């Protein structure tokens, strides 16, 4: 066994760049840090910050161009063989063999780590029990839910009892319940074996639970410190704002246009704002500010926004819309069922959506969100029940309804070899736009989504956040009344997510109805109303505040949306 010491992972002026064609990407630039043994360190930063590259460097899967990476004082280049016995690495898409059963996957990784036969059974039982996988031992990995797959991936990585665990976004696309279990498994392993963990994450609440946080941006390591240190810097800068006469959305829009504030998001019944360092809170008539505890996310946004001063600016163009909206039901869903063979994906679903509303569909993978969406867009017929969109019955005139809706699919269906402008022109002509009207819409899209600097870039070469903007612009070319967004923010960092919601809010304020699916529970806060789906059924429906109130208890005064979700799911399971 190679030596284990306190120098768990040390990077010394590490740089790494990739060449593709003529373009060079500097993924990691001159990064130096070491992590605390026996603790969890979080790696956070926007998309393309270099988190995955950094983890791969640490795992010895990539070699640095310059600088050194060492694990327990072993060099990642020369002593990689020894390092591999000490680490466990779980890539973003954990490579489970989907055509192998749970137990076969475990056996394979046990063989690869040369786990002795006698230790094996005990370890399997321990890990499957801990992850709740024991009832599914003989199920093929491909037939597990997203959360289960992730837990199995973690179990395979933990088989060898690694001394250093490297996790790349382990909880993306995982429902809150499974996410909690993942954490429990990791913490248990740390207690038992004194394991050290480095994980990248897009969830700030997750980073907040770690001992230290490393903030990365554009390949650089900006800061490394405890979550408390980051939060401490924001003391006195965070407020919950409330207005008597304005809706939260109007208030948020107003506040985000003020120079004093870096950030404004809707959080439950209030608007959560972060003030610029050094600014003073002036009395604004009709708005009450209440000082609140800063969160890590506030520090994150503040640090990143100071680097990109002009990047996120709310366009002031939006007029005082929103007041004159008639409250008619634009979508009516009445006892809709959908069967796939013997499997019922959607069960007697009923809800209505009003014009200009942002309506959310939340739920874990496989809850029936995408099926519901496809039925609403007329892409999939209903098995039973009534469905009308913009007053049109989808059973009889799906094509007619489709002209009035815009749809953005999970995978951003763009033509990667066409430029941004060519994509816009193509999609607008697909919707029948011609000549000056087409030119006008393309110009609008480039402006509204700030895509002008990229208009001649191939869409395949855009950063993820820009791809998402372009996909949304394409769905809006024909000025639909209803916009369907399927997981628009999955894999997108907090900064880009904010931008996305800001623009979506503006659209809603002009009377566009927005339906959105997400598995980010915190995003539910942006919705006017939402439903939470579990196994094709509606678990609960209401405004974010109403739903959260259901989980209120003595020792939890202010439950988050995630708390509410877990509370409701477990409550249902108990019944």
């Amino acid at each position, binding site marked *: 066994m190679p030596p284990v010491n306190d120098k768990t992972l040390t990077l010394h002026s590490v740089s790494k760049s990739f060449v593709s064609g003529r373009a060079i990407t500097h993924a990691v630039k001159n990064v130096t840090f070491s992590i605390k043994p026996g603790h969890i360190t979080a790696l956070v930063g926007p998309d393309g910050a270099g988190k995955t590259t950094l983890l791969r460097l640490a795992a010895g899967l*990539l070699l640095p161009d310059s600088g050194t990476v060492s694990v327990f004082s072993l060099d990642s280049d020369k002593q990689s063989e020894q390092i*591999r016995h000490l680490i466990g690495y*779980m*890539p973003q*898409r954990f490579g489970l063999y989907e055509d*192998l059963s749970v137990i076969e996957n475990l056996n394979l990784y046990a*063989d690869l*780590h040369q786990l002795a036969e006698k230790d094996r059974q005990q370890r399997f039982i321990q890990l499957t029990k801990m992850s709740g996988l024991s009832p599914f031992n003989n199920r093929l990995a491909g037939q597990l839910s997203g959360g289960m797959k992730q837990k199995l991936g973690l179990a*395979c990585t933990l088989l060898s009892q690694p001394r250093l665990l490297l996790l790349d976004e382990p909880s993306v696309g995982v429902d809150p319940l499974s996410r909690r279990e993942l954490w429990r498994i990791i913490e248990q392993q740390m207690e038992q074996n004194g394991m050290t963990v480095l994980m990248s994450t897009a969830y700030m609440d997750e980073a907040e639970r770690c001992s230290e946080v490393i903030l990365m941006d554009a390949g650089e390591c900006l800061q490394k410190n405890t979550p408390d240190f980051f939060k401490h810097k924001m003391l006195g800068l965070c407020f919950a704002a409330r207005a008597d006469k304005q809706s939260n959305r109007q208030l948020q829009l107003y506040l985000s246009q003020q120079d004093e504030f870096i950030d404004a998001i809707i959080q439950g019944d209030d608007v959560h704002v972060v003030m610029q360092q050094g600014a003073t809170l002036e009395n604004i008539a009709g708005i009450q500010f209440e000082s609140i505890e800063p969160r890590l996310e506030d520090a994150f946004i503040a640090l990143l926004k100071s680097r990109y001063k002009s990047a996120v600016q709310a366009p002031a163009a939006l007029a005082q819309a929103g007041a004159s909206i008639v409250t008619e039901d634009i979508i009516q869903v009445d006892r809709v069922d959908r069967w796939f063979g013997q499997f019922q994906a959607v069960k007697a679903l009923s809800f209505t959506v009003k014009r200009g509303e942002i309506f959310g569909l939340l739920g874990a993978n496989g809850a029936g969100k995408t099926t519901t969406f496809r039925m609403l867009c007329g892409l999939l017929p209903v098995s039973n029940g009534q469905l009308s969109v913009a007053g049109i019955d989808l059973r009889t005139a799906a094509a007619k309804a489709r002209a009035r809706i815009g749809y953005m699919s999970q995978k951003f269906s763009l033509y990667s070899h066409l430029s941004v402008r060519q994509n816009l022109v193509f999609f607008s002509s697909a919707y029948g736009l011609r000549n000056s009207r087409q030119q006008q819409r393309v110009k609008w899209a480039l402006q509204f989504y700030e895509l002008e600097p990229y208009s001649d870039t191939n869409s395949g070469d855009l950063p993820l956040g820009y791809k998402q903007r372009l996909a949304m612009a394409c769905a809006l070319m024909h000025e639909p009344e209803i916009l369907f967004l399927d997981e628009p923010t999955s894999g997108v960092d907090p900064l880009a997510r904010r931008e996305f919601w800001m623009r979506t809010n503006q659209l809603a304020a002009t009377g566009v109805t927005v339906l959105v699916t997400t598995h980010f529970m915190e995003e539910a806060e942006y919705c006017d109303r939402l439903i939470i789906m579990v196994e094709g059924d509606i678990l609960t429906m209401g405004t974010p505040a109403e739903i959260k109130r259901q989980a209120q208890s003595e020792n939890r005064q202010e439950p988050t949306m995630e708390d509410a979700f877990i509370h409701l799911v477990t409550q249902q399971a108990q019944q």
Partner: protein
Amino acid sequence: MKSQMRLKGLIYKEFLQIWRDPSSLAIAFVLPVFLLLLFGYGVSLDAKHVPIGWVIEKPTASTSSFSNAFAHSDYFESTFFADMEDAEFALQARKINAIIHLREDFSRQLFKPQPAAIQIIVDGVDANTARLISGYIQGTWSQWLNQKAELRGTPLQQPVIADHRIWYNSAVLSKDYLIPGLIAVIMTLIGALLTALVFAREWERGTMESLLATPISTQEILLGKLIPYYLLGMGGLLLSIAMAVFLFQVPLRGSFWVLLFTGSLFLFVALGMGLLISIVAKNQFVAGQIAIIITFLPAFIMSGFIFDISSMPEAIQGLTYLIGARYFVAILQTVFLTGNVWAVILPNSLALLVMALIFFTLAARKAPRRLE
């Protein structure tokens, strides 16, 4: 001892995957059987039961004796027409492949110093079949003339009488040389195409990244793929030999063990190519395209399996030396139909060995231990 556990785990995993994945099973078992059945029963380069039309202007004893000579042959089906117009119409409609036209002076002219000419019209759309038909008809014609002459006691005046015999495949059955050659195609399919595809799948599904992070060595990764697909390929070889010998009655005149040994050599060439492709192509679509273009199609077209190499243009002939299947097809056809002709087996085996070594050295050198 310990590293055997890793290798054993990988091989076991590979077999589970092959067994559970319908597309692997199809390439490994269904496609070979399908190809063998197709080439054994369906495709034939022989002319048999060729429909021909007769136009006999003045039936006599001679004309009926002559047409009878055709009636007893396996190669032809005769139809009689009243005049040329009808016959030509049938030829156009592709109901018959050839017309034999006997003029009214046929019997009279028969044994004149200048023997009566018969008119043969052959549908030349399919050049290969046309050549075969005209050859068969001429053969039958001269045979019949000889018999007639002997009966009259005046041997036909012919300067040289060619007495030709066909050796090794005396019945001239095309299936007897197609099926041995097909074995090379089938083993290319399993060795190169399937191996390239399953390797690419590991990259595509992200399982390779997880594998590389474990204490596994490059050799183990390569062996973990080589061993299962070697076994599978040898299974394909045995299946093909069994079907050839027992189902299609292809004679196996050489040694079974020579087949097995040279088959192994060829399989190494195919596996080596499969591994090399997988290092270049990291998604299944590209891997499949490359494998079909640089291994499967050449094995089909340029190996001498269907098309004779010596009748190809010289530049193309030169190219065939780069194709492993060429050497194996030569061995297969010789061992099946002629026997253990070492003058053929040894140089071709040597060529296969050299190719296998080159491919393996390249694959081992280029095999990834990291992500780039």
